[in-house]
């Protein structure tokens, strides 16, 4: 009998736990440790933030799902990693502290045979001075409660606009190395759509601000799509949408400070700038959680497990952009020092960014971090689970399957408005996620199609229902791809 502990219950962790249960018999124990009591379908947060959905529609409690599937659920957060055990306990374990239920505040050593770290990112608002949801006129849509607050603030703003006030709205990234531009992109277009539907769009100046080299880059380096019989870049597509809706844009901007309704930034030319707003949604930097790891003797071995995120089988050798290769990216997500530890989703440390790194004239790095959305996170979670199940069943210490983000596709459905007859979305298909210039010398990727229109909204809405059904692990869940 083996015990597998999964840390986290987002796309990667929840998918990993589900596939472990599917692939392993009941004699094996699966434990999920997560500080959250609910699963949240994050892609729909932009609709909570514009009042189109409530958190009730995008979340569900995890405990009944795990109980039904015979998965042990511990609502707790990880404090420290002990991959060799300690002087008293001769088994690897993680020290956790309960965050809910009867045991709240209690600590426990949770032992394991295999560990899957899917703890996601820390929303590092503190990395930007003055940036925090509810402070200095800023909001966030990174979690359902943040998004709910964002809608409350936006609604109040709409009421002011209806009384004739002219306002400024700024949406984008709040740090020079922030990622998740896609969520901010969807939010700005949905805010535009919401203002139009309330008849107050003429009362707002809407501005996009981001650390991308140009709009539509999304931390993915250059992207190209077939659209309307031509090859469009991501920049063409984003500029077309912004121009069509009268949205201004500032790029190459690393925001470093936010004061009451003012964001200060430096751009790649080394110039200082500021942008004023009455409502600002700025995505924070995503950081590692700062976990510590200790060996049997109690010595600090954090550098064997973590950089900012968890070390896996990537090539972390520092090299210039020209020498980057698709082969740098991990394939098994296994820690090289402790082969029974894996990281999935955002929790693994990437070898480098996907975007070309750029430094301002004053030496400030203004480069988006590599995004890892629900689709690759789910795929990696499944891959890791299948490998762990294989290792348990065969006694092998080597994972069987390999899957790199350099041979993984992603479908991105970016909402640009809500409504069965009046909604719209951009659908972008990308293969592979990490460009491979050896295989695709011209663009680094296959040029797949993009689409913009009402059918995109139907697709996004369908995916919302489909993935909530899948993640509730209802009948036939595994037939729905990640």
């Amino acid at each position: 009998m083996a015990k597998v502990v999964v840390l986290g219950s987002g796309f990667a962790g929840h998918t990993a736990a589900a596939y472990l249960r599917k692939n392993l018999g009941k004699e094996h124990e699966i434990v999920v440790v997560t500080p959250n009591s609910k699963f949240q379908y994050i892609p729909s947060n932009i609709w909570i933030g514009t009042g189109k959905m409530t958190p009730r529609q995008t979340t569900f409690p995890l405990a009944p799902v795990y109980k039904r599937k015979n998965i042990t659920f511990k609502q707790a957060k990880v404090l420290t990693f002990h991959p060799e055990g300690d002087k008293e306990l001769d088994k690897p374990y993680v020290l956790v502290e309960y965050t809910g239920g009867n045991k709240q505040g209690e600590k426990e050593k949770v032992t394991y045979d295999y560990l899957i770290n899917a703890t996601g990112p820390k929303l590092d608002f503190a990395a930007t001075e003055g940036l925090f949801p509810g402070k200095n006129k800023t909001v966030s849509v990174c979690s359902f409660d943040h998004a709910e607050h964002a809608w409350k603030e936006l609604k109040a703003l709409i009421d002011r606009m209806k009384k004739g006030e002219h306002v400024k709205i700024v949406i984008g990234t709040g740090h020079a190395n922030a990622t998740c531009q896609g969520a901010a992109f969807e939010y700005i277009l949905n805010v535009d759509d919401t203002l139009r539907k309330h008849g107050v769009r003429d009362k707002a100046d809407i501005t996009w601000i981001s650390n991308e080299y140009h709009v539509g880059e999304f931390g993915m380096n250059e992207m190209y799509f077939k659209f309307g019989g031509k090859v469009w870049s991501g920049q063409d597509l984003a500029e077309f949408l912004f121009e069509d809706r009268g949205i201004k844009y500032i790029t190459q901007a690393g925001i470093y400070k936010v004061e009451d309704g003012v964001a200060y930034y430096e751009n790649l030319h080394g110039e200082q700038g500021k942008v004023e707003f009455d409502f600002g949604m700025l995505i924070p930097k995503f950081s590692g959680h700062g976990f510590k790891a200790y060996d049997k003797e109690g010595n600090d071995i954090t550098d064997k497990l973590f950089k900012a995120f968890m070390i896996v089988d990537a090539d972390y050798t520092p090299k210039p952009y020209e020498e980057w290769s698709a082969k740098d990216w991990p394939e098994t997500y296994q820690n090289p020092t402790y082969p029974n530890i894996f990281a999935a989703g955002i929790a693994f440390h990437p070898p480098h960014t996907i975007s070309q790194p750029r430094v301002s004239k004053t030496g400030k790095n203004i480069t988006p971090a590599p995004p890892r959305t629900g689709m690759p996170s789910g795929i990696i979670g499944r891959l890791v689970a299948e490998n762990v199940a294989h290792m348990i069943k065969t006694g092998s210490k080597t994972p069987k399957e390999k899957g790199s983000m350099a041979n993984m596709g992603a479908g991105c459905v970016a909402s640009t408005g809500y409504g069965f007859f009046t909604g719209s979305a951009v659908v972008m298909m990308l293969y592979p996620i990490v460009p491979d210039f050896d295989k695709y010398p011209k663009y680094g990727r296959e040029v797949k199609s993009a689409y913009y229109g009402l059918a995109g909204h139907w697709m996004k809405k369908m995916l919302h229902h489909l993935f909530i059904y899948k993640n509730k692990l209802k009948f036939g869940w595994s037939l729905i791809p990640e």
Partner: protein
Amino acid sequence: MAAYKMSGFQRFLLLRCLIWNFIMFVVLNLKMLFLVAKGHGGTRD
């Protein structure tokens, strides 16, 4: 390309014409399934 504007017909087709959008919905789903089948990564292909 930055100044590209949609014509009235394009706007109707993409945002209002239900038959066209239903066809596109089916096509997009098929394309997405193809992408998923192709792009699950690595040795499982």
